[in-house]
């Protein structure tokens, strides 16, 4: 499977639009936000639906960039840490990939998104690899034992299974550190991305980090395109 630039950009647009619609709905329908914040996310939802429909993507992405800056301002930074960062980064890169005047510039923008996707796994894996607590499984034990992330108290019981946590730690470290090698072969990349999607889905189920799932898969088509571009497929 390979994608040309236009296909990859459109697929990224679609997946990002889904991520933005879900985020907007959570704020508009869910509890906790005031009327001004709900209006802001309602606007984001409308623009995201327009992006899904492919209506004037350059204009719509410009509007979404403005709402993204407004939400950063509103929440004094990212609302949900890394997922907001990846979603905003994808938004910025896709905006450039539409508005830059030359095809070379547009390709650089999409390549930047793909490179950041690879770095997100590599850097995250590397800092775990050099940390003895991650190598021994102690860090993941603490994530389950007392961090704010487990979605139910029952999951905290996993902290009592050191062998399982050691294996899980090394599975995560191995996947993240080795992910860049999948760029060497198209089929390996597809398997790598499938594993990545599974990893994000597991994080959503166990830790409630659902926004990471949607933000990260929005960048997958950019990487499939970049690999084909680099390998000359």
């Amino acid at each position, binding site marked *: 499977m390979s994608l040309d630039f236009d296909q990859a950009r459109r697929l990224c647009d679609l997946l990002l639009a889904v991520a933005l619609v*879900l985020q907007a*709905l*959570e*704020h508009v*329908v*869910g*509890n*906790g936000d*005031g009327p001004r914040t709900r209006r802001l996310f309602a606007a984001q939802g409308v623009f995201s639906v327009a992006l899904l429909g492919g209506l004037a993507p350059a204009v719509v992405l410009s509007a979404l960039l403005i709402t993204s*800056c407004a939400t*950063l*301002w509103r*929440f*004094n*930074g*990212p*609302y*949900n*840490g*890394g997922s*907001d*960062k*990846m979603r*905003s*980064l994808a938004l*910025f890169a896709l905006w450039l990939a539409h508005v830059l005047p030359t095809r070379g510039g547009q390709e650089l923008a999409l390549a930047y998104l793909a490179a*950041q996707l690879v*770095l*997100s796994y590599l*850097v*995250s894996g590397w*800092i*775990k690899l050099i*940390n003895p*607590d*991650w190598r021994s499984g102690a*860090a993941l034990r*603490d*994530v389950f*034992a*007392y*961090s*704010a*992330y*487990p*979605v*139910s*108290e*029952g999951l905290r019981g996993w902290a009592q299974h050191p062998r399982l946590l050691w294996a899980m730690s090394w599975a995560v470290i191995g996947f993240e550190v080795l992910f860049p090698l999948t760029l060497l072969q198209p089929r390996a990349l597809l398997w790598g991305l499938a594993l990545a999607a599974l990893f994000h*889905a597991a994080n*959503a*189920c*166990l830790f*409630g*980090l*659902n*926004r990471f*799932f949607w933000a990260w898969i929005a960048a997958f088509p950019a990487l499939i395109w970049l690999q084909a571009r680099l390998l000359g497929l």
Partner: protein
Amino acid sequence: MRQSLNNLSFLFSLLLPVLLPSWRFFKTVAPSPRIEVARFERGSDGAWVQVQDWQAFRPAPRRLSFGALVAQIFWNPDRNAQLYLVSCAERMIAAQEEGRRCARSFNEISARLSEALWQAPRTGRAPLAAFRFRLIFIWRAGQELRHDVDFTSDLIALDARA
């Protein structure tokens, strides 16, 4: 003009880590905050009396079914709001350790607690009340888990909402 420049500089400081992220997820497992709330009501002498023990604010459920776990991939507003409050608590304590006060995070936490307590069902003719919240940080000291109270708010009256 000066205010505009300050705002622009603040926005830039928010955008930079988004456009050039570090991706250092879970470098260490830091002390983890919990928010606890206690309700107060006026006694017969007009003084505030604590009428409820400290309680975790929206604690995680005991168990979730497999279906509920999977459904979270698509719809999880309460959990995301809870994680946002965790970020606010971390920002408050980071500011406190630097000798600053993070008013925005404090206001965010107190406003959301206030809203939740206001909407909570009340028994009988319970009078409008006040509450305090505190931030507890859990961390590992050797084989033990320690719970430190790092912040306790002043009384926050719900009367203002009447």
